[in-house]
């Protein structure tokens, strides 16, 4: 394979050519209600070629590896159809490396029968929790992936990776009222992470049932405290996406707004992103351009100090590469993506944060999030009113929304309980379901718009 790939990228009379070949092997199962609805094993083999010719890009992806050389020609030919390109790549040292799997417990060695038995038990716990439980979605998946990258600059990297994920979702019903709650467990290296989730199953069920009697929040502006899982989503949605240099590098106006050195928040606010964290959901050694991963400070002491780059955006902005070029799979080109995005440890204990709030909302547990430039929206699974410094009546999930610039400035407390417990999947443009990590301590935001009825 190595000989064939390196031969295919060599001597092509281009600025740059890269080939990625990906193999994966995935197992999944899903219980819905009392039945095991889906159990499957899928295998994938595919590749892609990206070519830069006189500053213009061409790209071709394929499943038939027999057509590899033809697809290199096609990518180059497509690049030549655009005579007006001004793209370039930041210089990096070529890398030759092999990154093998390092597993604590390999999920591929666990018999399917064992996985089914384990998740059937979690499913049984949720279903048996209360007569109000209407149905469940209890699923497991593991996915082995091997990506080989060969470039005309001499980089040749083989990286293996594993993603393991369990989802325990409960749905409770009372007449026309239906509520959902879920818990997840993820790991990069250990099947053990999805064992012993009985308590989580119970928590998901209990939360779904308790949401049945919760009131909806009244829409309006509130002081809001976010738990670590939700604050991580906030860091990802509200700020992370704007830190992706491909939004900025060809947009002069946005570049002025996102100028390094600008003050965005209080001195106690620090946000970073990086794949160079051991075994987190968004971790890796090299990105899909073969650039080594690192930790990139984005906001330090409230000041914008960095952003996330691919080789292309780094070249155009004259900044350092950060190892954030990722492709969701071989069908797509690498673009600037987050890896593990987190708000760093602060100093305010949760109880203290709460004590100052006369009337506010404590929002917990991620439901989802979305962003469009400076506007963001994300939602919690459950919430509580805060009255006179104490947690009061439970609320249904709330939708929080705002403008990133005013909202970052309105963060007035960062907790001392940093946790990376969350972690999800991110979509950008046509590339969805990219594994990302998120982390944060509790944070408090003044004057946040909450939607409700």
């Amino acid at each position, binding site marked *: 394979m190595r000989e064939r790939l390196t031969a295919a990228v060599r001597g092509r009379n281009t600025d740059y050519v890269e080939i990625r070949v990906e193999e994966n092997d995935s197992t999944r199962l899903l219980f819905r209600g009392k039945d095991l609805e889906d159990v499957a094993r899928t295998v994938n083999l595919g590749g892609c070629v990206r070519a830069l010719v006189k500053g213009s*890009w*061409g790209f*071709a992806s394929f499943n038939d590896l027999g057509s590899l050389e033809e697809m290199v020609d096609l990518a180059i030919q497509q690049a030549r159809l655009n005579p*007006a390109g001004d793209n370039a790549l930041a210089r990096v040292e070529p890398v030759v490396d092999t990154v093998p799997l390092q597993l604590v417990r390999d999920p591929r060695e666990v018999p399917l029968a064992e996985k089914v038995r384990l998740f059937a038990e979690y499913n049984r716990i949720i279903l048996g929790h209360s007569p109000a439980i209407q149905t469940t979605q209890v699923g497991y998946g593991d996915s082995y992936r091997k990506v080989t990258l060969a470039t005309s600059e001499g980089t040749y990297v083989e990286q293996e990776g594993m993603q393991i994920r369990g989802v325990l979702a409960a749905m409770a*019903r009372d007449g026309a009222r239906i509520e959902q709650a879920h818990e997840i467990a993820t790991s990069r290296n250990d099947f053990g992470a999805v064992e012993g989730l009985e308590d989580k199953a119970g928590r998901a069920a209990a939360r779904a049932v308790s949401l049945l009697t919760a009131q909806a929040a009244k*829409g309006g502006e509130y002081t809001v405290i976010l738990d670590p899982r939700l604050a991580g989503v906030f860091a990802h949605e509200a700020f992370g996406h704007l830190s992706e240099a491909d939004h900025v590098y060809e947009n002069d106006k946005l570049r002025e707004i996102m100028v390094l050195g600008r003050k965005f928040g209080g001195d106690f606010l620090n946000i970073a992103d990086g794949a160079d964290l051991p075994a987190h959901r968004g971790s890796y050694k090299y990105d899909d351009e073969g650039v080594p991963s690192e930790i990139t400070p984005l906001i330090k002491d409230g000041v914008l100090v960095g952003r996330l780059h691919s080789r292309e955006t780094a070249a155009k902005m004259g900044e350092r590469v950060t190892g954030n070029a990722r492709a969701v799979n071989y069908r797509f080109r690498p673009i600037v993506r987050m890896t593990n995005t987190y708000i760093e440890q602060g100093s305010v204990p949760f109880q203290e944060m709460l004590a100052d709030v006369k009337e506010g909302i404590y929002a917990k547990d991620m439901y989802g999030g979305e962003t469009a*430039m400076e506007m963001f*929206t994300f939602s919690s699974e459950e919430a509580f009113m805060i009255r006179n410094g104490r947690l009061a009546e439970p609320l249904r999930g709330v939708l929080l*929304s705002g403008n990133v610039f005013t909202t970052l400035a309105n963060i007035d407390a960062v907790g001392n309980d940093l946790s990376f417990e969350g972690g999800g999947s991110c979509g950008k443009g046509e590339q969805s379901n990219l594994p990302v990590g998120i982390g944060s301590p509790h944070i408090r935001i003044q004057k946040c718009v909450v939607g409700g*009825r």
Partner: protein
Amino acid sequence: MPTTDIEEVLALAARQAEEAEVYSVRVEDTPVSFEANKLKILQTRRISGLSLRLIKNGRVGFTASTKPEPAADLVDRALAVAEFGAEAKFSLPSSGVVREVPGYDPLVEGLELDAMIELGQRLIEKLRAYNPAILCGASIGRYVSTMELLNSRGGSVGEHKTVLSASLGGNLIEGTSMLDVWESDASCLASLDFDATVQRVIDQFEMAKTTGSLPTGELPVIFVPKAFAETLLSPLIVAFNGKTVQQGASPLKGRLGEQVFDPRLSIYDDGTLPYAPRSGPTDDEGVPSRRTPLVENGVAKNFYYDLQTAGLVGAESTGNGFRSLESLPGPSTTNTVVAEGDTSLADMIADVKEGLIVYQVMGAWAGNLLAGDFSANVHLGYKIENGQLAGRVKDTMIAGNVYEAFKERLQALGDKAEWVGGSTKLPPVYFRALSVATKQ
């Protein structure tokens, strides 16, 4: 390199299982993308792969592959998981009379890259001619697919389809105020109306030139077709999904035949509309496509089903079994069509003293869809004052419940339905009052 022979896979699987089905797709997807006013990248994606579903000892086994491999490997994998699979509640359809639903245009397949580049450039030039300060992006996509479905009961379906798609948008920044507008359209035919897409984008930029503010409270709200589709359709689509019904999670379970909505509301799932990208002669299980009333004159009429889910509840498949290469079929809509009402959009606007018209939302997925709740951030919406548009509103959220809104609060449905994104066709809708929350 060897390729996997689907007839061989089927024959081998049929010998070892009660029933078997091979689903095979070949796709060539060619998007031409423009960023920051310029051609960014030309791409070609050639996807090919197949999946095998079988029934062994009454249980479903499934595997998918994009890797050339011996038929026996696929069959072994599917048999291995069948031991744990769901109990099969269906028989695969044998070949029957299938009506023609056109979805192929040789003009799309024959579209040259040069022509696509030119087209994209023309759209961007038009938008820049309107306002050169807009930073424009566009994508023109040519998609050609071949689907083959064979099963051990003699069922055999082949479908050859083309889709031409266009999306166009831009970004305008003044101070720290940003405006991002995108519109898209898709059709199986080459005769897509690109100028209409450009015009929709320009209209948004024009309307957003001024800003307005609304109080928090209950206000009249109009949704244009795109916002209707993004905000209000998902809770309904979920509730009519046979899977949701079978799980007991649909608020409509056991309520077919009931007057659930205002009598002016009718919604159809129609997989037979010619040249719509989600139409076809059959679904992805070989069941013929049809037009299924979901709501007719406000009465809940039918749920939509695939084979297995229908079998579980003792219903018939409605030809709504759809799948991706790697997934089992499940109930999914084809084209969703909402019947027109009798009020023009202009009359709706003229009727509002103080209210909101919504063009685009964010976060609509975040509501409790199963309960019928919707809750969204108004990404593009305008204040209406004394029957006139009065500026873009920001930091505004809307919320409500589709069952309550379409029963108690429906003021009018528009007299002109529009295609949105090539798969839904619906008119504007006007509610007397919905909850609006704004930043003061």
